[in-house]
């Protein structure tokens, strides 16, 4: 039952940030939407590791936590003509 509440919140967060990424009039809006989705997906992966009861699955969440910002950084540096 408690899992249903958790996953509902996560699903609402993913839906809202993906909606911002889809609607966003300018590209920075879309980038921020996708970045928010990345962050919520990290939380989803941690929750699912607890749900499946497999601690080693946390490594995948760690990869996203360490590398998730590089794509956003690349787009941001492009927008300020720094690449």
């Amino acid at each position, binding site marked *: 039952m408690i899992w249903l509440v958790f996953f509902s919140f996560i699903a609402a967060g993913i839906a809202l940030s993906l909606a911002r990424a889809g609607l966003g009039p300018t590209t920075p809006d879309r980038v921020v939407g996708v970045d928010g989705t990345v962050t919520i997906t990290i939380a989803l992966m941690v929750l699912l590791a607890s749900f499946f009861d497999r601690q080693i*699955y946390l490594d995948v969440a760690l990869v996203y936590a*360490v*590398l998730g910002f*590089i794509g956003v*950084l*690349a787009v941001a*540096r492009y927008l*300020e003509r*720094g690449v």
Partner: protein
Amino acid sequence: MRAFIGFVALSLIAVGLALALYHIPFGQDRMDVARDYLARSVRDTGAPNVVTGIVVNYRALDTLGEVTVLFSASLGVGMLMTWRSPGGGRPLPGASLIVRRGAGFLFPFILLFGGYIFVHGHLTPGGGFQGGAVIASAFLLLYLGIPGYLLARRPLAAIESLTGITFVAIGIIGLAVGGYFLNNFLPKGSVFSLFSAGVIPILYMVIGLKVGAELAGVVANMIGGGEE
């Protein structure tokens, strides 16, 4: 008109695929090979991660082929682009303080994490390819965070060549000792300990360094070369 014809053709292909796949039951294992691997893999290879056991032990020759394919892709990018400093002489605007300091601060930790992924490839999810991609991302972070950064070319080429030679040398030693290429000739040790599973950790370290060097070379070539 062309778009309409393309849409109709794609729809026909989709309907055909759906009709063909409809008859295959989903989620039941009908593969004797898979069942055999699952039953025997830990005993044969000593690696608790069955995927690693298959990729680096049973199918290690295919992995050598994959690394070679990645090498030729890196070579192709290197032939098209040249290895120069970013911007090609154009002065780049400096990154903000947070990005510069953050890139310098995070770089060793990302390298360490990549090393962890491929050293522990036989115990936890991940392996050489994943760890190599993480290491290349660390160098990409330096390129993005520090304007004018240029990766040294010779050490990278040396790492790539040495690891390729080591991979083949391990295979040939296995051929001499056990009778077939890439034979697991080292003792398997106890399952779930770091130094176990014979040559699998060594091979994954080699693959991780090679993939990391190749992808970092692709990034360095892409960011430096070409016309504006």
